[in-house]
Structure formats: C-alpha cells, structure tokens
C-alpha cells in the first residue's frame, strides 16, 4: 500500500490543484442553483409591465366581464378597429370579438404591435372561454349554478403506498421518485464516464510521455494502475461531496431569499422548473408541492445518498479498470475510440433501459439489469427511489464489487503488456491475448 499511497497522493494533489478542478467544483453548484432559482426570478420579474388591450366587442357580452388583472388591463371601445388603429398606437394590441362569439367561439382576433407571448395568448383565450361558458350556462337558467359548480369542483392528489414483504406500507410519491430516479441514474452515467475517461487520459499521457518507463523500475505496474484509479476516485468523491454541500448551502440560502414570503409559490415554480428541465417528464408538477415537502425527508434522502455513493464507487471502479486497460493499449486518445466502443455500449444501453425501468421498477427487466454489474449502477439508482427489496440490493452490490475485483485482475494483465507496446494499434482480440501473456 505504501507506494500505491504515494501514487494516490500525487494523482489527488495534481488534479485538485488544477484551476479547471477548482472552477468546475465551484461553478457547477452555482449553475445548478441558478437553474432552480431562475424560474422563480423570471416569474417575479415578469408582470412588471402592464399590457393594455383595447377590446372591440361586437357581441356586447364579453367586454363588460373582462376584468383587468395584474398583467393585462382591458379597455372596451366602440369605434371601428381601423380608426382605433389610427388613434391608439401606444397600446399592446386590439382584441376583436365577433358578434356571434357565443355560437362561433373561433370568431375572436387579437391584433398586436409585438408578437404575443404564449402566456398572453393562453390567458386571453381562457378568460374569454370562461365568460362564454358562463353565458352559455346562464341559458339553462339554474339559479345557484356557480355555487354548485364550486362545490362539485374536485382535485385529486394520489398518494401511493408500496406494500413490502412484511405487509407494512411504505409511502412513496410517484413524481418525486421519477425525478430522483431519473436524476441519480443519469448522474451515475455522467460521473462514471467523466472520471473513467480521466483515468484513461492519465494512462495515455503517462505512456506517450514515457514517464511509465522510468517508473517500472520502482513500482509494480499493478500498483501504478490501482494508484491512478483510486487517486481519481478520491478526486471524484471530493468533488461530489463539495457539490452536495454547496448545493444544499446555496439552495438553503438563496431559494428562500429569492422566493421571500411567497415560499409556497416559489417551491412550486422551483419543482415546476426542475420538471421542465427534465424534458420528457414535464407536466408532472401537479402535486409537486407535496413532493417537494418529501425531498426534505432526511431518511429518504440519506438512503438515496448512500446508494448513490456505493453505486458510483462500484460503477466507477469497474469502468475505470476497463478504461485504464484501454489507455495502456493505445498511444493517443484518437486511437482509443475503437476500443472504447465495447465499453460504452453497456452504459448507453443502461441509460435507454432506465426509461423503461422507471415505468415498471419491479419488473423482470428492472431486476436483471440491476443485477448485471455493467448496468446495475445506473439501473439500481433508477429503481432505488421506488424502493428495492434489501436482498436484491445486497446481491447487486456484491456482484458489482466482485466483478470489479475480477476486472482489475484482467485489466492489470492488459495494462502490464500495453504500457510497453508502442506503434501498432491493437484490436480487441489482441487485448484478450495479452491477458494470457507471460512476462
């Protein structure tokens, strides 16, 4: 361990002192918190300017009932559109409502000086629709209709429970689980590749600059490889921990500050923004407030955190060993592309399967892919927020770390041969041959 320790020390110090490390470590949480806060800020800055809209209502039904709000103000006029256009150039636009709007709801036009935002369009249409609906309902002559409607109106928030083996019930939220599952699976994927590639580049650098030749007379190649893998692992964990702390600190300070007393509004915008950023998962902010409250449940978060660290380390080690072997076999990064492909495929496959797994976190697909060590880090992280039986976790983690041990042995063999092979670009077959190579 002595020499490996010296190598780990160098890897760690050299990398942590790099300006790029300091920058990404500090900027990433800032960026993330910024992304969370931005929607809140935008929603608060948005309504600053009131938009004045002149309403030319030929039906005489809608205009009186359009109340000016925070963002839009309405002014009914009776003159024709043409004369109004001449006279008033300082307004946002002109809303023309056809005389037959009650029967032909399409006969509504907005003329504006600037392209109307989606928000304005939506608000106008829904307001007019409400007025028209109310008018139509009036025709049925039911007196207490508004009250009835008020009473009938229902919103359902689904609470989901998972029945575990002991027959107990565990509450879990679908929305939150989906967000967390997606996020942690994806993060594992990114981190494993990010730091795995770092290992590969480090090995290639040492090989092409011939530093390795000097070191062979002082260190076993195996120690050299393990030192690099573990050194970069310590860099990764340091960076990750700093990120977690910074995000919680920044999130804890900035979010309430920006949201002010409208915290509820803020949080809903916050998780709405998160969901929006997630692309395929947008439109799930229905019970986001409830979900967000559960984010702060320390036991739940702790479980995810521990799972993340365990699977990240395992996945990283497994892939880093393969990346180290690839790096040792080639002379420069461009040559490594071909050999990287077989390593990349299982990871990309995991990312694809992950989406299916989130729809059915307890199905056969989910089970098998969370057992196969090459895909288990991503898939298990995607399953974890939904709850996974304990024995499955133990089995999957054991398989992952056992296969790491095996992979390191194989990679060490390839590495030993590879670092002194220059010139020719070896194929996968050749690497397999190196495993049985005698030296």
């Amino acid at each position: 361990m002595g020499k490996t320790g010296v190598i780990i020390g160098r890897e760690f110090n050299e990398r942590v002192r790099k300006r790029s490390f300091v920058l990404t470590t500090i900027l990433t949480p800032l960026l993330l918190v910024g992304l969370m806060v931005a929607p809140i800020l935008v929603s608060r800055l948005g309504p600053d300017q009131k938009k004045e809209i002149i309403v030319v209502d030929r039906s005489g039904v809608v205009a009186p009932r359009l109340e000016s709000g925070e963002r839009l103000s309405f002014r009914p006029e009776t003159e024709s559109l043409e004369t109004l256009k001449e006279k008033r150039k300082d307004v946002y636009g002109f809303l023309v409502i056809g005389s037959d709007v009650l029967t032909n709801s399409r006969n509504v036009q907005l003329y504006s000086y600037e392209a109307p935002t989606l928000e304005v369009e939506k608000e106008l249409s829904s307001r007019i629709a409400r007025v028209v609906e109310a008018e139509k309902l009036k025709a049925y002559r039911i007196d207490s209709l508004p009250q009835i409607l008020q009473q009938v109106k229902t919103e359902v928030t689904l609470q989901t429970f998972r029945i575990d083996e002991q027959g107990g019930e565990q509450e879990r939220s679908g929305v939150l689980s989906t967000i967390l599952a997606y996020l942690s699976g994806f993060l594992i994927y990114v981190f494993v590749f990010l730091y795995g590639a770092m290992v590969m580049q480090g090995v290639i650098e040492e090989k092409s600059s011939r530093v390795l030749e000097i070191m062979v007379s002082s260190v076993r190649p195996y120690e050299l490889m393990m030192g690099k893998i573990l050194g970069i692992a310590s860099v990764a964990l340091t960076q990750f921990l700093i990120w977690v702390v910074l995000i919680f600190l920044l999130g804890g300070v900035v979010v309430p500050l920006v949201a002010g007393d409208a915290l509820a509004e803020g949080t809903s915008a916050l998780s709405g923004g998160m969901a929006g950023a997630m692309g395929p998962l947008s439109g799930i902010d229905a019970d986001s407030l409830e979900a967000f409250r559960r984010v702060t449940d320390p036991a739940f978060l702790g479980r995810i955190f521990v799972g993340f660290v365990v699977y990240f380390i395992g996945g990283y080690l497994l892939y880093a060993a393969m990346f180290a072997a690839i790096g040792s076999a080639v002379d420069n990064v461009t040559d490594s592309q071909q050999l990287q492909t077989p390593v990349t495929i299982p990871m990309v496959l995991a990312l694809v399967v992950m989406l299916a797994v989130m729809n059915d976190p307890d199905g056969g697909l989910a089970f098998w892919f969370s057992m196969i060590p090459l895909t288990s880090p991503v898939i298990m992280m995607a399953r974890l927020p939904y709850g996974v039986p304990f024995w499955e976790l133990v089995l999957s983690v054991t398989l992952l770390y056992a296969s790491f041990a095996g992979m390191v042995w194989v990679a060490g063999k390839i590495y030993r041969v590879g670092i002194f092979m220059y010139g020719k670009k070896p194929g996968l077959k050749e690497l397999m041959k190196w495993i049985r190579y005698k030296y």
Partner: protein
Amino acid sequence: MFRIGNSYLMEIVRVEHVTKQYAGHKALDDVSLAVPEGCVYGLLGPNGAGKTTLIRIINRITAPDSGQVWLDGRPLQPDDVYRIGYLPEERGLYKKMKVGEQAIYFARLKGLSRREATLRLREWFDRFGIRPWWNKRVEELSKGMAQKIQFIVTVLHRPRLLIFDEPFSGFDPINANLLKEEILRLKDEGATVIFSTHNMSSVEEICDHITLINRSHNILSGRVEEIRHRYGENLFQIDFLGDGESLRRELGERFGTVEGGEESSLYDSLRVRLDTPDRIRELLSLVNDRVAVRGFREIIPSMNDIFIKAVEGKLQI
C-alpha cells in the same frame, strides 16, 4: 560457459543464451554475457542491434523467448528490478509538474522518505548547479536539462546496479563530460554501471568491459584494454632523426609493409607492420643502428576502429 578475460571478480549480472523474437525479426539471438561487480560495462552496437531489447530484458520489461538472466548468482526475480536504477532510452517526465516535487515523487516511489529524498536531491542539485530549477515546471526545461533531472532520479536511491540506455544522447560535450565523471564517481562508490552507447570515445575513457552486439548477436566481449591489444596488428611507429629514405628502403626489404607515421616538423616518422611480435627486438636494433630514435610505440587500434571493423565483418574473431 562464458568468461571475461582473466577477471575472476564476482559477477553481478549474467545473461545466458537469451533469444528474443519480435514479429518479423529477431532482436536477440543466443546472447550471453557476464557483468563483473563494480565495473563500468559498455553495451556497444549500431542502431537496431538489440541493445535496448537486452536492457529491457534485464529490467524485466519484456521477457526473453528463451534463455535466462541471473542477478547475484540467482535467477532474476520480479522484485529484483526494484534494486536496479534504470534510465530508459526514451525519457519522460510529467510536463506540468514542478521539478523538485517530481524528483521527490520518484524518489519516494523508490522507497526514500520525503525527508531523505529532499536532502539528497538538494545535494545533487547543488552539484549539477541546477538549484534554481527546483520550482520550475518540467515543460520549461530544455531536453538536456530534463535529462539531468532524470539521471539524478535514477541514481538517487544509490542502487548497486545502474543501467543507462544511451545516457549521452542529447548532451552537449560539456554535460557529456560531467556525466562521465559522475559515472566514474558512482563506480568508485561501489556501484556497477551498465550502459549502452555508440559514442566510442566514452567507451575508452570510462568502460572497463564491453560487449559488442551486432545484428542481434554478441560478436565481441571482454576487457577494453585486452580487446584493444588482442586486435592490435603488430603495427609499430618509430619517430627518429636521420636518413628516412634509406631506412624506409631497408625496413621494406626486411619486414614488408612500411608506411608513413604521424607528420611532425620535429622528426620523421615511419610505421612498420610485423608478421609476429617476436621481431620487435630485431626491428629496434636495426633502427637504432641507422638513425637517432626519438620514440617507439605500438599503435593500438582505438575502440572506434575495432567497432567499425567488427560491424563491417572485417575483424577476425
């Protein structure tokens, strides 16, 4: 079995019938040699002869297809390489790391404590006059400068066996001299130095023993002085004052080949090739009779001549 000259010194390295085949060509073919402890041992040979392959085999970087390497009378073990100070031909350092920090790193990998490494490095840096480089990055150094650092790193942990692959390449004459002195100093301190080179002047100056490798074969091994005498051609030079023309004629009749010696304004000079060294007395008394002799010596071939002749296949071995 294989023996070097008359020396019965303890052997530190023995290479026995080593053969190494690469795809397409044989790098080493049945090469044997023995390195006595405490000497400077030169591995000579033209480019591509197999010197580096042999060195890499001794360092266990590559394995021989057949044959065996012994260290201190035992077959070479995997951990033996950690007792060797090895300076590879292709030298490399971490470009972004600072010189001092990097030297300490390599020293620690060789088992020195940080304290000990710093102390020894300071001493070496002072001796080479490179103290100001301590905090520079390697990428700021010239090639020769980086090579000095690597030399220091190689010898810092005072291994008993040092192997340098082409240590002089890339050095200017001044630094090459500095390196020669250091190699001799290491020898005085008891280390055995094996180095490969095609710089022949360094061979005569510092090598005790050599092995000449050509086209993957060991074609010549032995003590430098002994080899030079062994391949002496009984060529003798006489510096004199007197009638050169008649002497030349007379010598030509008695001994055969006569040629002009080194030009000098002070005296004339002739070279005579004898068919056997036994006729030295005959030559001397004849010459002494005819002219005033100012100098008489055997012309011993330089290693450079032997090298070129051996490689070109003109040498009777």
